[in-house]
């Protein structure tokens, strides 16, 4: 029998259900191998639908949220006309994007031009599959979660480089090259912070990392290790902002300098895919921050039983998304507050500041483990 390495309640439910259904079939079709293959396929379809639903469903919400956060930071109202407080505005925009004519500039490498946005989308989708949304809600509970995320997360830069290069536009090329340099540099810091979390929690599995933070708020990794946890969280915040190409580190797009950077020549659906990838990356990075530092789906218990019982009654999924949206809000506030550093200053910041600090942090974390046992 085909035994999957990953088990979860929904998967088990499907695996139990399939033999009961096939029992009604003629005897010739009844075999354990067939059942397990069918169950595997059904599970895969459910997983794909779930990941797509989370990712694609969150993008319009985030775009609406970004518009509103940005508007209120800037003393204005944002979209107000379409629907209640402009709620349908994003849907209208998405429809507009989808129905626009798609064309490539002359001289563009058409194959690469249209492949690039799809490549960009791969990374955030794959990371999303690894995130434990609740105790029973994880698509792929793989043991090497963090290394896989580090490996996959840098994949997006390939799409950006391809898109910038195949556009046959100098601004796109400059944007793509900037982006390549930036993401590859910040990848190192990003990986190191995750390694720090792996080191202190003793596991590369995201579920285990979450479970190691069980307890009160003070058991979350951001607070559990005095000072170091908070520093690590801030460093993660910075490097993931750069990793996502979000302002103030959006030098790849740099609207004022490069008129849009690598996606200058894109329009319609391919542009929407770049846009979507940016927002899904926002969700996955926030989810990663939540899982690694903010206790994942655990309720923010304070160690006082009556309050904790009430908090624990709320499902983990709600806590998880609450924390994720708090993180997203932080990213948005930073985006609309700071100005953009120059490309060489950004590199200096990574190689001359973030990287040494990360190395010190790793050493200090190891020392903390040695001391506290």
């Amino acid at each position, binding site marked *: 029998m085909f035994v999957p390495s990953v088990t979860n309640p929904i998967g088990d439910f499907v695996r139990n259900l399939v033999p009961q259904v096939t029992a009604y079939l003629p005897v010739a079709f009844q075999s354990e191998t067939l059942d397990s293959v069918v169950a595997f396929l059904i599970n895969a379809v459910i997983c794909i639908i779930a990941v797509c639903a989370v990712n694609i469903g969150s993008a319009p919400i985030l775009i609406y949220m970004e518009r509103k956060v940005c508007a209120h930071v*800037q003393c204005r109202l944002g979209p107000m006309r379409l629907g209640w407080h402009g709620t349908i505005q994003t849907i209208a925009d998405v429809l507009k994007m989808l129905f626009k004519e798609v064309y490539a500039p002359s001289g563009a490498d058409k194959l690469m031009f249209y492949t690039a946005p799809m490549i960009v989308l791969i990374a955030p989708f794959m990371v999303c599959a690894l995130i434990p949304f609740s105790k029973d809600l994880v698509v792929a509970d793989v043991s090497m979660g963090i290394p896989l995320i580090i490996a996959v997360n840098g994949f997006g830069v390939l799409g950006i480089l391809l898109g910038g290069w195949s556009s046959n536009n100098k601004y796109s090329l*400059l944007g793509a090259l900037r982006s390549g340099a930036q993401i590859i540099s910040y990848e190192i810091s990003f990986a190191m912070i995750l390694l720090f979390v792996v080191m202190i929690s003793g596991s590369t599995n995201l579920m285990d990392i979450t479970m190691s933070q069980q307890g009160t708020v003070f058991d979350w990794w951001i607070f559990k290790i005095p000072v170091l946890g908070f520093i690590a969280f801030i460093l993660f915040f910075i490097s993931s902002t750069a990793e996502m190409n979000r302002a*103030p580190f959006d*030098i790849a797009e740099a609207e*004022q*300098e490069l*008129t849009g950077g690598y996606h200058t020549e894109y329009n319609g659906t391919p542009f929407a895919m770049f846009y979507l990838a940016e927002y899904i990356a926002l969700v996955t990075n926030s989810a990663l921050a939540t899982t690694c530092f903010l206790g994942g789906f655990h309720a923010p218990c304070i160690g006082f039983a009556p309050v904790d019982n009430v908090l624990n009654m709320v499902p983990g999924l709600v806590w998880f998304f609450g924390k994720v949206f708090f993180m997203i809000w932080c990213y948005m506030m930073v985006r*609309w507050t*700071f*100005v953009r550093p120059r490309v060489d200053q950004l590199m200096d910041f990574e190689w001359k500041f973030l990287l040494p600090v990360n190395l010190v942090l790793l050493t200090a974390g190891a020392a903390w483990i040695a001391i506290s046992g």
Partner: protein
Amino acid sequence: MTGMLPPGFRIQRETNTEEFFINMGPQHPSTHGALRLALRMDGETIVELVPHFGYIHRGMEKQAESMSYLQYIALSDRQDYLTAIQNNLGVVIALEKGMNIGVPEKAEYIRVMLQELGRIASHLVFFACFGGDLGGQTCLLYGFKEREMIHDILEEVTGSRLTTNFFRPGGSRYDVPDTFIPRVKAFLDHMDDTMKDYERFLSKNIIVLERSKGIGILSKEDAIAYGCSGPVLRASGVNFDVRRANPYSIYDSFDFEVPVTYNGDCYDRYTVRIAEIHESMKILRQCIDRFPTEGPWRSKEKPVRLPVGRYYSEIETAKGLYATYVVAATTGEKPYRIHTRGPSFPHIAALNKMVQGHKISDLVTILATLDPVIPEIDR
């Protein structure tokens, strides 16, 4: 290879890399209008910059030859639309010299107050665009928020928000309404608080400091040689302000400083403008204290004809020296020639000197601190 590079290059080329050409504008988000910059680049470093003008040339000076003097005042709005009310005054002063007409005290106060409001509005646009071009889109909205309040005041006084067309030889088109002084006072009180916030937003922000200090240095000699004026000149250490050097209207009766800084970089140009906002507010407060409620707001006679002669006026707009030269060949309503000396053209001319050796991101910063208005260059 390095020997061919202009002085001040920050990154010296050791490898034999290939230069390439980038066309920036006329359709580009940060060229502040239809300006085209042809860039010779080495990677992201600018080797040479050649500005191209003329995309919105409307032939205003030629149009002026078939217009009456008073009609030309309306055209001066359309040159530098951010300092429209100041351009009005520049033209009107030149005409007044020929028409030999006095201006009542109240009219002078109205002029000075509107001038300074216009200056604050223009500097707020600078603040907004400077922040916006650095990538802080929020600054863009903040600067425009207070500018709207000034435009509300201008709307109440002149009837229009942007192209005011307000001053006339001997005074102005209308008297100010009774609500003018209280509104300006309320605006100044509001501005005192908001300027603190705005300065906290950019002035001490480490990224802004990193991106503007030592960037786009214009030496004192170069600033004078290129004919720069206004905040750009004063940021390079030249204490020249027409309001002080060659006072027009009643500027000699006010107590205000001329802010001067000496590094000539982007940050200095920024601080000079912020300091000028404070000085303008100081002048406005003095105006409010001394504003004559009684008395005529324009002269009795309303001349439209200019005697034969050549008349020159220069004023200090928010951008710099705005001079008008009127040649009247015959005594009549129409000029033979009107020439305008705008402040933005020399600034863009000096741009090549400032950007050489800097990155393309710095070009955007430098261009923002020059605060050019392209319609005023093209006219």
